[in-house]
């Protein structure tokens, strides 16, 4: 009985929290996309005056590129010099 109750409580909790979590996660993902684009500016043909400093962050965002282009519905990376799969 107690187990059932707590399962129901967890379900209700999830029902309440999930939309918030989704919103937060989406906002964060947008921020991270922006950051990735700043780091990959060159690859998009945007002259980047700070490339000396952005290249050192490439290793940190490299794995996000794959997640990013698959999320956008592209099988392959659209960036000419950055491919991941």
């Amino acid at each position: 009985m107690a187990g059932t109750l707590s399962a129901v409580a967890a379900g209700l909790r999830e029902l309440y929290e999930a939309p918030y979590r989704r919103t937060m996660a989406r906002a964060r993902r947008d921020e991270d996309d922006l950051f990735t684009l700043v780091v990959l500016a060159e690859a998009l043909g945007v002259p980047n005056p700070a490339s000396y400093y952005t290249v050192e962050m490439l290793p940190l965002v490299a794995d996000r590129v794959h997640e990013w282009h698959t999320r956008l519905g592209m099988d392959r990376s659209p960036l000419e010099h950055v491919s991941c799969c």
Partner: protein
Amino acid sequence: MLLDLAARRRVLFLGGKGGVGKTSIASAVALSRARAGQRVLVVSTDPAHNLGHLWRRTVGDDVVRLDTAPSGGHLDGVEVDPERTTAAHLSAVRDTLRRIVPEHLGGEVDRHLDLARDAPGMHEAAVLERVADLTEQGLAGYDLVVFDTAPSGHTARLLSLPETMGAWTDGLLRRRDRSERLGAAAQMLGGRGEAEARRDAEIRSVLTRRRERFTLLREVLTDPERCAFVVVLAAERLPVLESVELVEQLSTLQVPVGGLVVNKRSPADAGPLLAARHEAERAHLDTLRERLGHLPLDEVPLLGDDLVGPDALDRLAGFL
């Protein structure tokens, strides 16, 4: 003026139009301080390096000993090579990237980094990196660092970079703040975490390290107790106008200007041609005094022989 100034500062920048004798003046003042018993480092940031020619030896991107004074002081020199700095920087990134991307994509990594090597600003950033590095080394291991800089425009730009790049890292750090706050909120509501949090921490530490470097350099550059910029010029129309402009740019950047050195002043008593030059130069110097009269000024006469080696530099220092 210049020798007194050098005795009271830790970092000196010498700048001005190309060909006015910055390298000779820089080495002369540096040598004179070394003779006075100080540990001195002279750094050439001009892409057209002349330090080696002046000292009749090879000077490169690694610090070499140029002179040891009987007083116990010594003079070291280095010619900054931004290409080497860029190459080292990129190869560190390359190694890290190669480790994390799948093996068959190694070529992609190389292509992207080759593209980055020639990106605008890369060269400047590398010079800035070396200047920051040598300033830190200089403050730690030397009594005085003398920077012999590239012609005016480049230098004003170089000195503005710590502020610009500081603003850039600040901007990115603010975005990271936002991203991390959102991430933390999502995690509290039961989202995923760990790996992302670790990445956030790494990005933040890279950015913060950069930010600290820029802040430190900017602090030194704008500190009138430790640092001074000296404009070297010839008493001709264009160098005078360019110097006035440079001093304005420096004051906008809040870089303290210590004085002016007018080099290669023609004598009044060595034939009619040089006497005529002497007169023409006086008119230009009047303009200079009118515009920059508040700055102390040294005049160095035109010397008969080529300036090479320590003896010639000693003689040159006698006029400063």
